[in-house]
């Protein structure tokens, strides 16, 4: 290889690196600008949010104060909304992890009659979107007097065919030796599951936890059908009420949106490194 060829290759590598950075920064601006607009706007007086929205001032916190947050919290009972969402989401995520992993594990590790049929059923059910059956489910719920209750918001969202499938394929790919050894030592099925299989399945649990946390925190359709009462209303629905009920103050709107987004943002930032790792290992792809 000649010296010229080598140096031109190095120059190409440098150009590629500069190109990567330029792209990253340009795309980064497209993604960061609306987020920055949200954060800055939440601290600005409502009238300025609009009048300054079309220039660089949109990203400058003029007349910054905490007034919007105070108004959001007092006028729209934001803490009630947040607390409701935490209760609903927390219950769905935690009980979902237990219930979906149990059946996923049984499908992967136990031999029993009807296993293949059950597996097919799970795959078929994963295709049925919840939205398509929302109306009959709503009728069931009203029949049982569960409208405007936490159980009404929670129960239909716990078992999830897609998460079951994720657990199933993860357990299937996991080496079985440790569990066999524990079994020979006399541990019962639940014991083997709890103390051997679960600790080894961290990535699958992390992935399902994040997916299910994001989707129940962001759920809009089901709470809007199930609740007309502020005492159980969730934050996403709350936001759409705040957005559309006069007097509309865009500063207050953005402040409530920011408060609604903060918990998920924090959870994600804490877990994000693990999430991308575990997405890779949990067989989600």
């Amino acid at each position: 290889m000649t010296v010229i060829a080598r140096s031109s290759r190095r120059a190409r590598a440098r150009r590629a690196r500069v190109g990567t950075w330029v792209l990253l920064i340009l795309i980064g601006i497209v993604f960061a600008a609306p987020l920055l607009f949200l954060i800055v706007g939440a601290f600005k007086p409502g009238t300025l949010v609009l009048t300054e929205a079309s220039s660089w001032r949109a990203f400058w916190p003029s007349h910054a104060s905490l007034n919007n947050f105070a108004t959001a919290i007092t006028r729209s009972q934001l803490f009630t909304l947040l607390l409701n969402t935490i209760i609903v989401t927390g219950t769905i995520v935690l009980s979902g992890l237990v219930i979906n992993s149990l059946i996923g594990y049984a499908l992967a590790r136990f031999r029993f009659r009807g296993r293949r049929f059950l597996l097919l059923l799970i795959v078929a059910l994963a295709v049925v979107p919840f939205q398509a059956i929302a109306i009959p489910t709503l009728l069931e719920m009203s029949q049982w007097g569960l409208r405007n209750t936490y159980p009404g918001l929670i129960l239909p969202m716990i078992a999830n065919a897609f998460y079951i499938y994720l657990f199933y394929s993860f357990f299937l790919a996991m080496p079985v030796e440790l569990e066999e050894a524990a079994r020979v030592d006399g541990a019962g099925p639940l014991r083997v599951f709890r103390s051997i299989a679960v600790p080894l399945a961290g990535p699958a649990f992390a992935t399902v936890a994040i997916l299910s946390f994001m989707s129940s925190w962001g759920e809009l359709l089901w709470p809007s059908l199930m609740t007309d009462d502020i005492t159980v209303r969730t934050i996403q629905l709350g936001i759409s009420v705040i957005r559309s009920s006069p007097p509309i103050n865009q500063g207050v709107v953005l402040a409530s949106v920011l408060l609604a987004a903060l918990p998920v943002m924090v959870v994600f930032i804490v877990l994000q490194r693990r999430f991308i790792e575990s997405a890779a290992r949990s067989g989600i792809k």
Partner: protein
Amino acid sequence: MTTHDLTRAVRPRPIRTGGGAALAAWLFNAPALVLLLIFLAVPFGLAIFFSFTNFRLGSPLPLRFVGVENYTSLFSDAEFLQAFANNVIFAVVVVPVQCALALGLAILVNQKIRGIAFFRALFFMPVVLGGAVVSTIWFILMDPSYGLLNGLLRAATFGQLHLRWLQDPNTALASIIVICIWGSVGFQMVILLAGLQDIPSDLYEAAQLDGAGTWAQFRSITLPGLRNTIVFVVTMTTIFAFRLFDQVFVLTHGGPLGSTNTMLLELVKVGYDQQLIGRACAIAVVFFLAVVAFTLLQRRVIKEDES
């Protein structure tokens, strides 16, 4: 999850067989099965059943079978047909564009550069925020008189160009598409990134030694290596595309002039606001069949592409 796993005869190494295993298995299965039965299988059956009836909440008329009347009246209803068409247009545009962008982003953030974790998190952040939050931000950015987007347009065209974005029937669906892609491309990016990281890096090193350029490496290593991941991402994006609801519910309620109406939004209007359960269930069945048909069609196209 890949089609591969589904079609291959999966034979696990069971650690438990025999009578005790069956008992344990059904104990493990029971909670999820009961919930799936009550909240998925039964409502699904009810939806099919009601779709052939005149069921209406608070109606004095007795429940009776009306055959396929709900279906025939749906397909002669301009409002529903427009919603159906909007779903198809949305899917046809969003699925390829979003998947291609996601692949580009995944390759970009798969570079080994300091600080790349920041960009990964940044591109994924809109997914974390969720549809309602993202829509609320973009509603202000797309405001016809004050919004940042028109500010930029005016600056770039010396005040000549100025769009009404979500308020104009000609641009509303396109605006929704932009918002949706911005808000969810990070999800597909993460899955594709996970797929990229599974491709052994010595394959690239060997190709470089053989003098393969970037494009050749992409064609002969990256794409084949990502095959299953791409099939999964495309399928998932299709299903999500048909479920379009949050953004139009928050931003436009299907307007202006029905230009952003979708099947799900129509389902909620008919079933919840007008209480026409029979008709809403017919929409649900059509919606379900459309998702399945579109997904199968795509599988076909992807398979043919390969051979």
